[in-house]
């Protein structure tokens, strides 16, 4: 399992792995927001938590179609399916690698982008905490979507259509926690719900992803 994780991390970090694309996308989306809604700092401060959450979510979505597709094309996935490691573990590791290479940099970049959007000072820590708690769910759900569409040519658009509705609860609680944090309100309830969603998806969804992957590998 460790070897697989290290392999995925190395592949993502080295040239051609597309590492940093998600970050750049996150930056660009955040920069475009003031152009579209105007530069008034009160308005930006009010929408900053939601915009940052949405930007992180979209950047996460952007990298999903590479999650399994490369291994699928060169047959690595078939080898993994026949290896002694259960496919459930493989998809969990894949999701973990995706989280480390894509979501974690987004979480770290979010406070910097928060400065651009004039996020209130109280909001920074809760933004980071909510993203830390919520992005595992995004990666795991995304892995399920990637497993569903892995056998399809040009599955990218379909992937977004399938995954985005599944992201709704995570986005609601995550953005709510960040917003309450920025307004100086109690963040306990949404954070607990967010952690619950992450824990539940992490525990259950790999089984669905593995089942779907087995169908696709048939």
């Amino acid at each position, binding site marked *: 399992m460790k070897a697989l994780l290290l392999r995925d991390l190395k592949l993502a970090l080295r040239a051609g792995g597309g590492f940093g694309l998600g970050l750049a996308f996150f930056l660009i989306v955040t920069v475009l927001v003031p152009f579209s809604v105007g530069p008034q700092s009160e308005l930006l401060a009010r929408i900053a938590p939601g915009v940052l959450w949405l930007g992180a979510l979209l950047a996460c979505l952007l990298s999903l179609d590479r999650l399994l597709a490369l291994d699928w094309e060169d047959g690595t996935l078939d080898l993994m399916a026949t290896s002694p490691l259960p496919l459930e573990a493989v998809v969990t590791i894949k999701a973990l690698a995706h989280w480390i290479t894509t979501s974690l940099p987004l979480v770290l970049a979010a406070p910097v982008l928060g400065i651009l959007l004039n996020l209130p000072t109280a909001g920074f820590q809760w933004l980071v905490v909510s993203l830390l708690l919520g992005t595992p769910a995004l990666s795991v759900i995304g892995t399920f979507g990637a497993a*569903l569409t892995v056998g399809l040519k040009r599955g990218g658009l379909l992937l977004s*259509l399938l995954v985005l509705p599944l992201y709704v*609860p995570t986005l*609601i609680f995550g953005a709510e926690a960040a917003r309450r944090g920025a307004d100086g309100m109690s963040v306990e309830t949404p954070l607990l719900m967010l952690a619950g969603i992450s824990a539940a998806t992490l525990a259950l969804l790999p089984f669905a992803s593995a089942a779907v992957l087995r169908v696709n590998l048939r």
Partner: protein
Amino acid sequence: MSIWEYANPKKFLTTSERVLPVLWVLAGVLCAVGLIWGFFFTPDDYRQGASVKIMFVHVPAAFIAINAWFMMLVASLIWVIRRHHVSALAAKAAAPVGVVMTLIALITGALWGHQIWGTWWVWDPRLTSFLVLFLFYLGYIALWSAIEDPDTAADLTSILCLVGSVFAVLSRYAVLFWNQGLHQGASLSLDKEENVADAFSNPLYVCMAGFGFLFLVLVLYRTGTEIRARRIRALMMRERMDA
């Protein structure tokens, strides 16, 4: 004699051909009676005037929209557990009916809302969760149409339906939380069950029964079409192999 006999496509087709005319008539009569009764023989509401009569389309459509997804969930479970092809095809056949019903509920709701609330759309929990349901339907249908191999498509869509159901319920309650967090107590949604008087509820029940039978008819009919399409596909493949 068990219900599983109808998992045989031939048995399903012959039986559904026999009951379909009866169901068509039943659906037509109930819809006609319910709608005419509702539109012309009920009093205007003292607050809402004649616009309350949108209810006779709106409520049954919403009722079917939710239950269609529930039926797809049951059919998907049957496919996953017992692998009856008719069940997978019935789920496939129900999805477009469900999405149209969702759309009807959303549009009639918008018209009604424009009259009573003075706005086409408001991010009320009920409205929002219906919009999310609509998105789930779209994804489900898109996945069916994207995959060529019918068995793979049936497997993938049924798992999507199972996972999607969990997330749809989760979204329903998440939306409830989100909206209360935003506008304190600004609940625009009229609780229909409490408000409806007998004069309205009787034709409403007739309409709901009519829409229910209409849904049943459409699903049976479309499932038959899917079975025949599958058969044509098999025949064509056999012909190509012989040639």
